[in-house]
């Protein structure tokens, strides 16, 4: 026999051309996308509007609220970001990004028209369809509004499918409030918006304190029956969502009807590198969206 082993090309040339069809080639496949606009939200956060350049790829890009993508700047790095825009917009996404590291600092220096890479969408999502016909509480602390914004946009796009929609949003001070230009639109779409800041400035007229204060007020105002048909999405730092979820649980909202989003530093986003593991759970595969029951049972989560 011929003793030489045959080389196996795991992705044949034919498959290369139709990359989406091969599982293997999707692993490192990057959509090329363009930053079409940069909207300054606060001193620290920008909203980047990023569009997949190829129209067909853009149309085929389906994601759900709560999912994230990996954003890559060649030579600078790659990092995960939750998508802030409406899923109806497909591969024309918005990312709310805080300057916190190498990639995000460089990103704050690039201009419109810059080409970036996108991998994804990745991870689990808020089960919005499951929430149809119910009341929905959207509670955010700080940058937690970034993943929540996609869920808000979904409720706006599908307003008839939800009963009451509440957004309860807390920030450290008024200068850190995100998406301020949307508040009137949300209210006009029949969303109850309550904003609270911890450290008010002289011009601040709203309530002062933590989101829990708003929730207590809500508890005082609303009938017990309200909570029977209510889902909650809580996004923010672990101390915050732990406190809020425990409060909501007292009103008998089951832990499986409360969803949180965990923030970890994924390097691959695809369940391989283990950098985002909580206990022994991959945040990128089993999360970032978890129901609160699951989070409670994760070692190291809170």
């Amino acid at each position, binding site marked *: 026999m011929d003793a030489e*082993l045959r080389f196996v090309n795991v*992705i044949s040339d034919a498959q290369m051309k139709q990359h989406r069809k091969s599982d293997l080639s999707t*692993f490192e496949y*990057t959509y090329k996308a363009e930053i079409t606009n940069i909207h300054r939200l606060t001193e620290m956060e920008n909203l980047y509007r990023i569009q997949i350049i190829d129209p067909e790829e853009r149309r085929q890009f389906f994601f759900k609220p709560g999912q994230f993508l990996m954003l890559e700047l*060649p030579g600078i790095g790659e990092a995960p970001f939750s998508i802030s825009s409406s899923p109806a917009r497909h591969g024309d996404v918005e990312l709310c990004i805080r300057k916190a590291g190498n990639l*995000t600092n460089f990103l704050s220096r690039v201009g419109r*028209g*810059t080409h970036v890479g996108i991998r994804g969408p990745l991870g689990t999502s808020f089960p919005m369809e499951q929430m149809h016909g119910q009341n929905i509480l959207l509670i955010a602390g700080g940058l937690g509004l970034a993943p929540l914004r996609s869920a808000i946009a979904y409720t706006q796009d599908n307003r008839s499918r939800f009963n009451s929609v509440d957004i309860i949003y807390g920030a450290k001070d008024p200068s850190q409030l995100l998406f301020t230009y949307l508040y009137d639109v949300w209210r006009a779409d029949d969303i109850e918006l309550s904003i609270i800041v911890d450290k008010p400035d002289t011009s601040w007229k709203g309530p002062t304190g933590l989101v829990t204060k708003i929730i207590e007020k809500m508890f005082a105002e609303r009938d017990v029956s309200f909570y029977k048909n209510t889902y909650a999405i809580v996004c923010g730092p672990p101390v915050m969502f732990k406190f809020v979820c425990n409060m909501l649980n007292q009103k008998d909202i089951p832990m499986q009807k409360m969803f949180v989003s965990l923030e970890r530093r994924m390097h691959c986003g695809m369940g391989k590198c283990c950098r985002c593991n909580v206990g022994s759970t991959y945040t990128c595969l089993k999360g970032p969206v978890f129901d609160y029951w699951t989070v409670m049972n994760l070692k190291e989560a809170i």
Partner: protein
Amino acid sequence: MIFRVFDKDELKKLFNVMVSANKVIGPVEIGRDRDNKPIYAFNEVKSFDSVRLDYTTTKLPAKRYFLPFKENLATFSLDADDWQKKVDYNIDRPFIFFGLHACDINALNKLDKVLLGSIYPMPYYAAKRENMFIIGLDCTPQPYCFCRSMGADTALHGFDMFITDVGDLYFVEILSDTAFNFLKNIKTAEPVEDDHIQYMKVVSEKNKKFTTHVDTTDLTKILDMEFQSDVWKQWGEQCLACGTCSKVCPTCYCYGVEETIDINLHGAKKTKFLYSCNLIDFAEVAGGHNFRPERHSRLKYRYYHKHRGFVEAYEESLCVGCGRCGEACLAGITVPEVIASVRGEAG
């Protein structure tokens, strides 16, 4: 399953057929330690005489051939305002592992589960795995081996052929047609009942030689119960946080990704490097928060991943009991001792 026996002299012929047309990786002696004991490694071999069929355990696993410590995931070429990404899986020809022990074959089988079997299979690993021809080789249990406790002392699949020394003959188990065809180059015979008896005798002799045991009963639960146990802190005080255990582990696959820019600014690289969960910044996020700042929390995480998380996902542990980590650990931290201490059986 197909079995054959062949004369010991025939193995060299088989090797020569293989090496004439292929890259062959085998166990070799690369030096002697301070006690004059041989130090083994998996290197490319050209001559049969350099292959040490009697090797005990290599210091490092054969990992660099399928999970290189450092590997380019992609390269970029950049011009004024655009860039192109090029992905290469970094293998261009098949290769042969000539003499992997059962533990190292089982390590590959375990890696297959997470790197090939889950969603998002990893092409860099797949490309190498698909181009691997594996000859397994039986072994003699060493004092640090606890593969039998981990159910990794025999390999059921994941190789092309497995050779066992049964005294005067080699007994070979054949799992692939490629292996079957290779064996046509040498003189083999159908085993007779005496050969079967001899094989079983060798196996039962081997089983008696294990001296280290790990009790894995209910381990996933016990790890959960003892999450806050003080024993972790004691091991954490010993740990050097140097990552050696992960580097010498045949199943540790965790990694980090880094991008660098060429000095002429016209190119960039995306590089994957195997990282260890014991290193201080393994769970550090942008902005500086570290989810596991203490040594003991990182050491505990490593046991969690291997002996709980993986079991939950795949019904088996991510440890093959090769004992390399304990042998390589300068601080003397060994898996059997850590697990015994968590079980409250500190010796």
